[in-house]
């Protein structure tokens, strides 16, 4: 029985040789058939001794030449192979007398090719592995390539082995497949028991695929080795190297993650060492991309994670990333949706769904449009802004949109509207817990259409809406009542709301479209363009485009406001037709005692770009009082100005590296007052994480009676996690940097702290009866501002019930109340909530309305004057 393989060309050559032999053997007396058989047997023995797995035509001619037919064969291989002849194989060492390997079994095709393809397809199309087993199979491009390579390589090798070939490419393919199979077998090893159990319902095969594939690969390697082991080293190693290259990003990320874990959990020395290594093996940009809230990846087990619990707390990872880089977490633009990997696979499960954390960026979710319509009432130094937001979801599953919004200082959300099937639905305002649980039940559990707004610390609200339908949109509107801040130049201003943090993308070209109306002139700064034009009725309309990205904050100023006169407005929410709220501006009592000024400077890498403005600001403050400056670095450091030198020299002498939690420095600054009066200005870049949950600082701020005042000045729209811990009514004050105006903002802070200029505060008082009839009528927004203050006062006095009732009645989102829009009346009833009447909500007047309004006011004023004259005449 011949066990050598013959090429067709070799067989035809042998046939030709035998024809020749038949002619010569005739007269010899030998048995021709026997001789031919003996010679063929001899040739095969020769081939075996030369370790030829396949006998080619060249081999045959050489052997025939060697057995004494000099006119037939040749000792040296001929030129290029004949068409159809396979390349000559080099000899292999005898396999200890073992027979040539049998053809590969079809089961190898099943385990090594079919199952991997099935697993990949299911994952790409339906996230099957992720949905069923909470395991994300492919989270990187390189992993997709690695996985796709396995069935391709093993399919190729299978085909080669069926033909009895095992060339360099076959070995390279098997080498690459081996590395990939071993890597994934190790990764899936902890899931093996689940895979075995899951085979009951057949789906467990998905988890067993790496093991089947590894088995198939090893069997094929054995067959290839028997065919031609001499090439195992070169081709095999080459393939292994290629696969190892594809594994490098994963291994690098695992190393990075491990080091971040040391930063998050390790001792001070371990942290310092890990930070140092991270700066060597990675870059700030790459580290900032680490997303700790993704679904469980097969490799996470070896980092200490499970499908139910990530290896490291996402909050700690975020903190560690910040510590190393000083950068906030990356928020990629929705352009990421164009990447092939994202196109080929659906986003992972949202682990922060329904929570009050932002969580990971949802790659298919984006802000589709944003517009702000509002009016500014100069007479009452108040404004009302309606911010309409539309979210678009391109994913296959519904998503939740979440964002933290920084409101203008002192502002309050006074309206919330959701569009449901094209109809506007107003919110219910109620206790915070009630609205939150209604949202959870209706949105997250029943997956119907609500939106929820609650406060999220000082001058911040948290907005979440779910479900934004697959391939659909969701539109909602926030109404914001805004008190303007008077400035020293006789004007009044407010900052536009901005998105501090979000779980959706924002296209780089997207802009907030702004439309503001006022009887006064308006100036918008910080936007890309603004045009003011006269509108009917003597009003002005300001149209502007503002970029929504951090650091692009814009503000509106009304020049020439002066000190607004006393105004009043009916409290229509109280149920008492006579109830009014009076607003007037009263002078702030100047401080008589000397005030100490302390400036806390963030020592993070972000501040490097702000040193010039900061130094100028300190110089300006120094004109009035020399501030004490403390820098928040690895340890708080009191900074002194060199003798005769400048603050710029002092600041530039420091190393601003990585990210630092400033809370410790603020606490040190606070403690340094030791009961004396004074003011702290905290100037900082992004503070996305708290290293120690804010320490004692939030308590000191809320409770301290004699401590310094704290003004927080985040630069370039930087987020401050500490502000999220403070009450919405905290005595701390938020001051926006307003870009290059930082030095003048710091100067203004110093002047106010030292009472160097007259300052005015807004006084809002509830009046029973008409109050001062001579006072101008204002819009109901001053009533809302009053209600906000009053609810805060009641809260301070621990009268929670009255505070909640007051805030809810006036439709405000406060520390104690929130707003939620549900879909149906039944849902409201079930939650014990009641949506507000559309007639009771504030609105931005139409231009025509201004005319009516203005005329109405005019008649009202004239009527009152007429009434007064009549009264005086009667007197």
């Amino acid at each position, binding site marked *: 029985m*011949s066990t050598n393989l013959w090429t067709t060309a070799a067989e035809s050559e042998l046939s030709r040789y035998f024809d020749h032999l038949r002619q010569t053997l005739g007269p010899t007396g030998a048995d021709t058939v026997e001789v031919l058989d003996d010679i063929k047997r001899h040739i095969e023995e020769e081939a*075996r001794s030369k370790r030829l797995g396949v006998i080619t035509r060249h081999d045959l001619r050489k052997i025939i030449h060697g057995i004494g037919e000099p006119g037939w064969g040749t000792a040296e291989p001929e030129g290029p192979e004949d068409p159809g002849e396979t390349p000559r194989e080099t000899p292999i060492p005898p396999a200890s007398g073992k027979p040539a390997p049998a053809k590969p079994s079809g089961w190898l095709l099943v385990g090594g090719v079919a199952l991997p393809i099935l697993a990949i397809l299911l994952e790409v199309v339906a996230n099957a592995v992720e949905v069923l087993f909470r395991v994300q199979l492919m989270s990187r491009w390189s992993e997709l390539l690695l996985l796709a390579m396995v069935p391709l390589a093993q399919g190729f090798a299978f085909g080669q082995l069926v033909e009895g070939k095992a060339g360099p490419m076959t070995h390279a393919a098997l080498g690459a497949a081996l590395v990939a199979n071993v890597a994934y077998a190790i990764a899936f090893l902890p899931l093996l028991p689940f895979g075995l159990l899951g085979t009951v319902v057949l789906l467990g095969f998905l988890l067993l695929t790496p093991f089947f594939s590894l088995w198939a690969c090893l069997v094929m390697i054995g067959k290839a080795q028997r065919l031609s082991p001499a090439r195992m080293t070169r081709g095999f190693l080459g393939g292994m190297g290629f696969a190892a290259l594809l594994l490098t990003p994963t291994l690098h990320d695992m190393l990075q993650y491990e080091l971040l874990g040391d930063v998050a959990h390790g001792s001070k020395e371990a942290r310092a060492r890990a930070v140092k290594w991270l700066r060597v093996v990675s870059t700030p940009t790459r580290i900032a991309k680490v997303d700790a809230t993704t679904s469980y990846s097969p490799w996470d087990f070896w980092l200490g994670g499970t499908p139910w619990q990530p290896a490291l707390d996402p909050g700690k990872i975020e903190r560690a990333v910040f510590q190393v880089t000083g950068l906030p977490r990356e928020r990629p633009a929705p352009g990421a949706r164009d990447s092939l990997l994202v196109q080929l696979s659906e986003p992972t499960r949202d682990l922060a769904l329904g929570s009050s954390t932002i969580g990971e960026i949802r790659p298919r979710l984006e802000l589709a449009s944003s517009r702000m319509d509002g009016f500014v009432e100069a007479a009452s130094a108040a404004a009302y802004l309606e911010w309409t937001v539309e979210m678009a979801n391109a994913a296959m599953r519904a998503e939740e949109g979440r964002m933290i919004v920084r409101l203008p200082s002192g502002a309050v959300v006074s309206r919330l509207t959701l569009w449901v099937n094209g109809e506007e639905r107003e919110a219910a305002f109620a206790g915070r817990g009630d609205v939150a649980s209604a949202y959870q039940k209706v949105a997250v559990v029943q997956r119907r259409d609500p939106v929820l707004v609650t406060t999220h610390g000082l001058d911040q609200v948290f907005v979440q809406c779910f479900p934004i339908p697959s391939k659909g949109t969701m539109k909602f509107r926030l109404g914001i009542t805004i008190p303007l801040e008077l400035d020293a130049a006789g004007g009044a201003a407010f900052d536009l709301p901005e998105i501090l943090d979000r779980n959706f993308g924002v296209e780089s070209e997207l802009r907030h479209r702004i439309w503001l109306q006022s009887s006064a002139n308006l100036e918008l700064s910080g936007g890309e363009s603004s045009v003011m034009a006269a509108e009917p009725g003597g009003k002005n309309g300001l149209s502007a485009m503002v970029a929504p990205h951090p650091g692009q904050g814009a503000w509106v100023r009304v020049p020439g406001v002066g000190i607004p006169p006393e105004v009043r407005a009916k409290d229509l929410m109280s149920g008492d037709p006579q109830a009014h709220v009076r607003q007037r501006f009263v002078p702030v009592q100047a401080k008589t005692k000397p005030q100490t000024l302390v400036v806390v400077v963030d020592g993070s890498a972000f501040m490097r770009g702000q040193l010039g403005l900061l130094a100028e600001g300190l110089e300006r403050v120094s004109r009035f009082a020399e501030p004490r400056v403390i820098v928040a670095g690895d340890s708080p450091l009191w900074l002194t100005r060199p003798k005769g030198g400048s603050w710029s020299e002092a600041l530039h002498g420091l190393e601003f590296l990585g990210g630092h939690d400033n809370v410790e420095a603020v606490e040190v600054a606070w403690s340094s007052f030791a009961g004396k009066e004074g003011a702290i200005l905290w100037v900082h870049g992004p503070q996305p994480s708290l290293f120690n949950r804010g320490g004692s600082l939030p308590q000191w701020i809320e409770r301290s009676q004699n401590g310094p005042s704290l003004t927080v000045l985040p630069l370039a729209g930087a987020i401050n996690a500490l502000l999220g811990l403070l009450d919405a009514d905290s005595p701390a004050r938020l001051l926006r940097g307003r870009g290059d105006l930082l030095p003048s903002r710091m100067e203004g802070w110093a002047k106010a702290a030292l009472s160097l200029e007259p300052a005015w505060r807004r006084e809002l008082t509830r009046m029973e009866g008409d109050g001062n009839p001579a006072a101008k009528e204002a819009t109901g927004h001053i009533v809302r501002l009053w209600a906000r203050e009053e609810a805060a006062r009641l809260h301070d006095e621990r009268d929670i019930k009255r505070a909640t009732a007051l805030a809810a009645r006036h439709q405000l989102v406060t520390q104690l109340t929130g707003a939620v829009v549900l879909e149906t009346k039944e849902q409201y009833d079930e939650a014990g909530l009641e949506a507000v009447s559309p007639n009771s909500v504030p609105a931005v007047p139409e231009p025509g309305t201004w005319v009516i309004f203005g005329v109405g006011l005019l008649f009202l004023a004239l009527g009152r004057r007429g009434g007064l004259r009549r009264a005086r005449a009667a007197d």
Partner: protein
Amino acid sequence: MYHAMQGSWLDTQVNDFFENWTVQVRKGLLELFVLNALADKECYAYQLVKTLVELPGLGVGESTLYPLLSRLRVQGIISARLVESNEGPARKYYALTPKGRKIVASMNTYISSLSQSARTLQTKETPHEHESVDHSG
């Protein structure tokens, strides 16, 4: 120069004669070698052929030996049998038949006596060496 040319021509003649003679000798002795190789025990054909090919001076190839072996088998001088092998094709083993043993014994006896005679001729002076050549008729 004439003598050098005459010497070179002579060497060529000697070589040609010797070559022809060795071919005739090998032809005659090939069967003897094959049968002697099988005298002690049965041999694996491939190994037998390899051994014979590598014998110095025999100068024979496999393409000559296999037909010879077949002829000897047909003549009943050697026998062949196939043995199945796990390592490759079935192996052919040759052995002498009783007839072959008799023949090889006779051949060996004859060659020995022939060699003896040749040696005798080499060492002993014969009468013809000392008689003058009578060229007269």
